[in-house]
């Protein structure tokens, strides 16, 4: 029973609040008053049915007030509306209370106050001047009220439905489509049979032309007849199958699309609160503002809708606090006294656009420039040269506010960066520009449906993955040979990006076959470009995504799952995770993460080059690679020591003068280690004094070469002698 009561209160009082705000603007519209009276009357009745006494009392007085207003016995002014709104909020709060008695006890005073004030309204003499508006903090904020269904074009009835049900429907209808596809393929496969049958017929016909003994001919005629009959039946059945297949495809497609639409709600669902917000805030600030809402019937995905409330609220608060001027200021500028706020939703070019605009004072660019310099966000010379667009970008920075005082209304300017972040989480973006003729306009762009993701399908280590197209920079194919290396990292010079193997990132085995061309996906993260190498590209797909089971937690490198057209599950990769991992991989010097040239086996010897000069490392590396060895690099002694302990090296080539740990120390450590003591070591150094060489050999190096000896074959010779 209580559930029904709750629903009733939400709907009735929601409508009541909307109507009240409209009433304030329209004066004494009798239709509105009637509707308001009815709403309170119904609420009173519902409260009586479930036995919630305080609610009944409150609703009763409300009803009386409206009746009196209809008879013009009482005033309908801002103060009165405040009072009624206060009571309405209490009613909603009451209906949501878990344990009613407890709520009543805790809020006894507030309840009594509301009752008194409402009664006082009825008594025009006794009613005092509008009391200070009660602090909203003592009440839970009213939840998004649904706009009356009749206002939405085309929506006749609405129903409450558990979200899970709709998700289940979506999954099943997707599965139905997959099953339907099988039917199509089956029909196709029968064509082969059909052709064989025709061949059989042909064979028999040929046989007919030969001379045959009489009884054989009889049997042949029989066979031909059977074949012909069979063929006719087959033909008919195939026709029927094809027809049925067409209908199944059509129905499952429609079913799927309809279910997808159930995920969509009209934009009005997100803005129910805004009228109230603007009104209350306007009163607090002493500014008269009108809110225009456009595009209420525009459909928005459920998941996106939830995220809209916070950004929209913040933008409106900002506009009211910073943007719209007081009535006096406005008239002195020749603007209409009443400020105008507009929120509009529309679909365009496959995106959902929501604009929030005001006709206020716009941005104070001079103050903005000052603040940037003050905060050391930008040197003064640069600040002067920044264009308006560039300046505007700064307002989205965290902690940035162009007001000196923190106001309770709009906070400390943490609003806009949060707006950008919240929207970014669902693939949206927000931009700002001056409105004409004056004021500011924010434009939010969002994907129309969250759960439908346009993906590039790729194959990595033989498995199919999806990459969200919106997050990809570029894709390209290059021949193996065009990849060079810098500091041991594979590098594609013409695109200027480092490459990482996809299968390495995902912990999958390397494929045996290697194509001569590499398929590379360019990703971008925080201004860095990376290239991920995949096996091959499989084309674009529109995937209907599913959130993965919460028990799995957040899977590394994966955002959501989806089911492909053939019914197999697939995973959508998380571009941010991938980029972060790529960054980490590229910092790890030791990993051999670039494919060896075809023909390289595991029996290639591995050499560790330790030197703090990148040039030297490169030279030595290329030399050694040319000699047929695999090479890893380390940047100093400590790094080298960490690497050599992995036990994978046949030879160490080390410098002496290095930070953190020098070459002598490194050699000493290696020699002292029981597992590594016999590892061949070559020291290569600029120092060519006799004592250095002696010292090197003393600590245990097998050879000591100077960097000069790279120009002849000495180095190569020494290496070969040591490890072959």
């Amino acid at each position, binding site marked *: 029973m209580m559930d029904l009561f709750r629903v009733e209160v939400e709907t009735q009082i929601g409508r009541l609040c909307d109507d009240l705000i409209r009433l304030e603007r329209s004066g004494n519209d009798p239709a509105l008053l009637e509707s308001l009276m009815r709403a309170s009357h119904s609420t009173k009745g519902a409260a009586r049915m479930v036995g919630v006494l305080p609610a009944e009392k409150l609703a009763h007085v409300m009803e009386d007030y409206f009746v009196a207003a209809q008879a013009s016995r009482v005033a309908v002014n801002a103060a009165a509306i405040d009072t009624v709104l206060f009571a309405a909020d209490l009613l909603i709060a009451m209906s949501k209370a878990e344990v009613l008695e407890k709520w009543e006890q805790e809020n006894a005073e507030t309840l009594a106050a509301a009752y008194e004030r409402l009664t006082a309204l009825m008594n025009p003499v006794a009613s005092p001047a509008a009391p200070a508006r009660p602090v909203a903090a003592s009440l839970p904020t009213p939840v998004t009220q649904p706009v009356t269904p009749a206002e939405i074009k085309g929506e006749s009835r609405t129903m409450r439905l558990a979200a899970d049900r709709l998700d289940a429907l979506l*999954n099943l209808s997707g599965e139905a489509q997959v099953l339907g596809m099988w039917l199509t393929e089956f029909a196709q496969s029968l064509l082969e049979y059909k052709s064989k049958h025709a061949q059989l017929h042909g064979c028999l016909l040929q046989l007919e032309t030969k001379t045959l003994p009489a009884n054989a001919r009889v049997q042949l005629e029989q066979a031909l007849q059977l074949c012909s009959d069979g063929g006719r039946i087959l033909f008919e059945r195939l026709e029927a199958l094809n027809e049925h297949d067409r209908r199944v495809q059509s129905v499952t497609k429609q079913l799927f699309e309809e279910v997808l639409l159930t995920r969509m709600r009209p934009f009005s669902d997100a803005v129910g609160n805004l009228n109230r917000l603007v009104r209350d805030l306007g009163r607090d600030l002493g500014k008269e503002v009108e809110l225009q809402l456009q595009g209420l019937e525009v459909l928005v995905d459920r998941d996106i809708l939830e995220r809209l409330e916070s950004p929209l609220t913040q933008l409106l608060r900002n506009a009211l606090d910073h943007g719209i001027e007081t009535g006096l200021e406005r008239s002195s500028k020749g603007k209409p006294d009443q400020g105008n706020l507009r929120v509009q939703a529309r679909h365009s070019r496959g995106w959902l656009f929501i604009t929030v605009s005001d006709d206020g004072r716009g941005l104070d660019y001079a103050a903005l420039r000052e603040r940037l310099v003050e905060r050391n966000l930008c040197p003064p010379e640069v600040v002067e040269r920044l264009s308006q667009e560039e300046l505007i970008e700064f307002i989205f920075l965290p902690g940035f506010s162009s007001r000196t005082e923190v106001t309770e209304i709009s906070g400390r300017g943490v609003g806009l960066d949060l707006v950008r972040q919240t929207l970014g989480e669902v693939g949206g973006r927000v931009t700002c520009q001056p409105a004409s003729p004056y004021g500011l306009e924010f434009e939010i762009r969002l994907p129309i449906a969250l759960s439908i993701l346009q993906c590039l399908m790729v194959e990595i280590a033989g498995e199919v993955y999806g990459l969200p197209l919106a997050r990809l920079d570029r894709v390209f194919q290059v021949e193996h040979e065009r990849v060079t290396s810098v500091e041991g990292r594979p590098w594609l010079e013409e695109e200027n990006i480092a490459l990482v193997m996809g299968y390495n990132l995902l912990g999958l085995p390397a494929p045996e076959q290697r194509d001569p061309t590499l398929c590379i996906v360019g990703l971008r993260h925080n201004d860095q470009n990376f290239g991920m190498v995949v096996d091959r590209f499989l084309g674009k797909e529109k995937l209907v995504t599913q959130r993965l089971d919460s028990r799995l*937690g957040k899977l590394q490198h994966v955002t959501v799952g989806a089911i492909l057209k053939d019914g197999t599950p697939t995973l959508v990769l998380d571009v941010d995770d991938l980029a972060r991992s790529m960054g980490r991989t590229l910092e790890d010097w030791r990993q051999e993460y670039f494919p060896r040239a075809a023909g390289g086996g595991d029996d290639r010897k591995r050499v560790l080059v330790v030197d703090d000069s990148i040039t030297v490392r490169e030279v030595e590396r290329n030399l050694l690679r040319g000699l047929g060895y695999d090479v890893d690099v380390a940047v100093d002694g400590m790094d080298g020591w960490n690497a050599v302990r992995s036990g994978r090296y046949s030879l160490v080539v080390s410098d002496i003068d290095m930070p953190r740990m020098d070459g002598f120390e490194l050699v000493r450590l290696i020699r002292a280690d029981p597992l590594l003591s016999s590892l061949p070591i070559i020291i290569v150094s600029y120092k060519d004094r006799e004592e250095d060489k002696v010292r090197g050999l003393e600590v245990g190096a097998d050879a000591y070469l100077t960097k000069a000896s790279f120009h002849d074959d000495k180095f190569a010779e020494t290496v070969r002698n040591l490890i072959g």
Partner: protein
Amino acid sequence: MIDEAADATDLFQRQPELDYLEQWRTTLAAQAEQAVEESQRYLVFRLADQLFGLPSSLVIEVLSSLTVRALPNRSKEVVQGLVNLHGRLQICVSLASLLVPGQPAGVAKRLLVVNLQGDHYVTPVQDALGMHRFKAADIIQPPASARHLNGLCSLNEQMVGLLDCSSLRNTLRRNVSR
């Protein structure tokens, strides 16, 4: 004759005495309780060469096979990956790796869809051997080392390990969320 008929009718319409009723009521009630207590239905299935039983209320479906999609950056030991079950992605786990570790799996002819106190899983088994009723009296204590069993019962001269829902659920949860 009429009297006899009347007597007969009287006989049939005679009300039983109260404690006679009471006696029978208690007897009948006791019998019903006994019948309920006595046995529970289990789905018996085979993993490698051992038999296990899951309370029938936990088993939702038995399927023949589904493509399993492995998860990246994870070992495939317990959590084998995801499957498409009626359009929804479900977690596929290997009970064999928990209950008969180290034994070669063999071809899994069946897939069980189970609901362990709200946690849904799909798991491959070598064979599903149907529902069996085991009487409480026939169930013996499992060895302490068997972490996931809460009983053992004999079926056609083979021992069936009866699985404990809570313990299994907890172990699976730990493995899944790793």
